[in-house]
């Protein structure tokens, strides 16, 4: 795509005024996109008094990390954090594994009943039972209120299988043939030869599931009444949306600090948003190319 381009900057030159207008619009769009994040960040580190008085708009006023201190001291937050790490790592591994296992047999052209298998895989993309039948099923299986309830139902994604299958079909047949001549079974071929050279597509899938699971909360809302099992997003939901977690109780400060504690409580929601979002924001620029790759690959199948 890039190589075919002959210095496009030269070709599309126009009047400078138009350029200035275009750049100004782009700058405003950028501002609209980023300002809410910036606002939340400066609110979270300004002094509590300024935050309560809503005086902070363009730069932090005063400097105070009190609300971060409160969060870091909260054992519930760390519970939720470690739960999220479990959900993300287990979910991502299973997602990749299932995508590989589902995709490989489909690339074998003379597999008997391949058409039927493809139909079997595609039907759930269009028809689903919906929220309540799934909920009842998870209950019947005894997964309700266990960690498995948010890991297992989501571990197969047809979309991922299609992506991996598309990648597998680009692997030259010669490679597979030679492995068979060496006496390898299909499973050996898959794990010893195909998976090691499929890292690019596995990276795309892994990153999509990492971000997807990191951000997901609805499954936990439906399946996990037990707070001990809640992922970080549910903790965030309780603090920011339901406002049911009262962090000012956590502070062990004495009475004279009560006012300061109350003030920083207003700040808390900003700090907690920053705290839970930082991992995504920091890793996002590095992962961005995988996201774009995934989006473009996904659109090809249509």
């Amino acid at each position, binding site marked *: 795509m890039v190589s075919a381009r002959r210095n496009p900057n030269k070709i599309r030159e126009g009047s400078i005024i138009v350029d200035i207008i275009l*750049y100004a619009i782009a700058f405003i769009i950028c501002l609209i*996109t980023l300002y809410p994040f910036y606002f939340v960040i400066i609110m979270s580190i300004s002094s509590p008094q300024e935050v309560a008085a809503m005086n902070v708009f363009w730069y932090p006023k005063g400097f105070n990390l009190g609300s971060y201190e409160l969060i870091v001291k909260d054992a519930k937050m760390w519970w939720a954090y470690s739960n999220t790490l479990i959900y993300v790592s287990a979910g991502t591994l299973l997602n990749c594994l299932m995508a590989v296992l589902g995709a490989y047999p489909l690339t074998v052209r003379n597999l008997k009943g391949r058409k039927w298998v493809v139909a079997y895989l595609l039907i759930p993309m269009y028809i689903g039972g919906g929220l309540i039948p799934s909920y009842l099923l998870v209950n019947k299986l005894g997964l309700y209120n266990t960690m498995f309830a948010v890991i297992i139902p989501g571990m197969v994604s047809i979309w991922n299988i299609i992506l991996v299958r598309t990648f597998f079909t680009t692997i030259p047949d*010669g490679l597979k043939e030679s492995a068979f001549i*060496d006496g390898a079974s299909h499973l050996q071929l898959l794990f010893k030869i195909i998976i090691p050279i499929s890292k690019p597509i596995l990276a795309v899938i892994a990153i999509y599931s990492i971000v997807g699971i990191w951000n997901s909360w609805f499954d936990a809302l439906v399946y996990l009444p037990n707070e001990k099992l809640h992922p970080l997003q549910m903790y*965030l939901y309780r603090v920011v*949306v339901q406002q049911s977690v009262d962090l000012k109780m956590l502070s062990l400060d004495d009475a004279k600090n009560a006012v300061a504690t109350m003030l920083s409580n207003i700040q808390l929601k900003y700090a907690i948003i920053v705290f839970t979002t930082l991992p995504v924001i920091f890793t996002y620029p590095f992962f961005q190319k995988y996201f774009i790759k995934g989006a473009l690959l996904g659109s090809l199948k249509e």
Partner: protein
Amino acid sequence: MKVISQPGKRRSFHLRDHVQLYLIMLPVLVHLFIFSYIPMYGIVIAFQDYYPGKPFLSFTDANWVGLKHFINFFNGPYFGRLMRNTFLLSFYFLVFGFWVPIVFSLLLNELKHGVFKKFVQTASYLPHFISNVVVAGMVLSFINVDGIINVIIQMFGGTPIALNTEPAYFPAIYTITSIWKSFGWSSILYLAAMSSVDPNLYEAAKMDGANRFKQMLHISLPSIRPTIFILLIFAIGSLLSANSEFILLIYNPMVYETADVIGTYLYRDGLLGGNFSMGTAVGLFISLINFTLLYVANSLSRKYSDYALW
């Protein structure tokens, strides 16, 4: 490993191969059977009086009630409100939001390749990767009575508005936030389509005296026409599936009048309220409508524009 495949000497396929391959697939097939096909079958409870504790896979001791739950829902007090809200929220997003990524990608396409363009692009994708809970938390704190929006209103001499409890404002809040969250990411497909345009086309157009606006109109825009049509079909096909997971986060009982959609009602009344049969019926009803819409949009598009999903 230097063996090169010899087309004539393809290894023959044995039963053993099929067994191996099916065993490899087995976990996926079983998973789909359990977590996709059984719930699909579970739709039958929409036509039964199901209560918890009953085996929902059994046909024998099911109280079949026919279309009772559908009829109850249609005649229920909330039917009109739910349909209106579900439709309107998606409709506003379509009308006010659909063109935003198109215009944005055309704009980006006019910028020179460089750090700034890259930065704008990266920034515009960012909201897509932020969780709904975070976005909801930000929106809720902004629209609060003492939130930043009311502070700005007061700075210009206005009186604070109860944005989060006044039903009239909910559609705007939902639509603006949804557009903000999605426009950058939605522009990716358009940008990809435009980047594959042959630069010589622009050059030729310039020779013929086309200015930049004309080039955009006659070269860039046509290059993304198929993408526009396909995404439009999708958007029309989901006119009755407002993003209820997000609405659930930002609404409250005071704004149900304009905020309560079928998805949120299904969660509240069907799941939390334990009306499993009714909830399943509502879910089925809405998927049928969405599928019909998608089908109609696709047929129309194929008839009038040559672009179609299938």
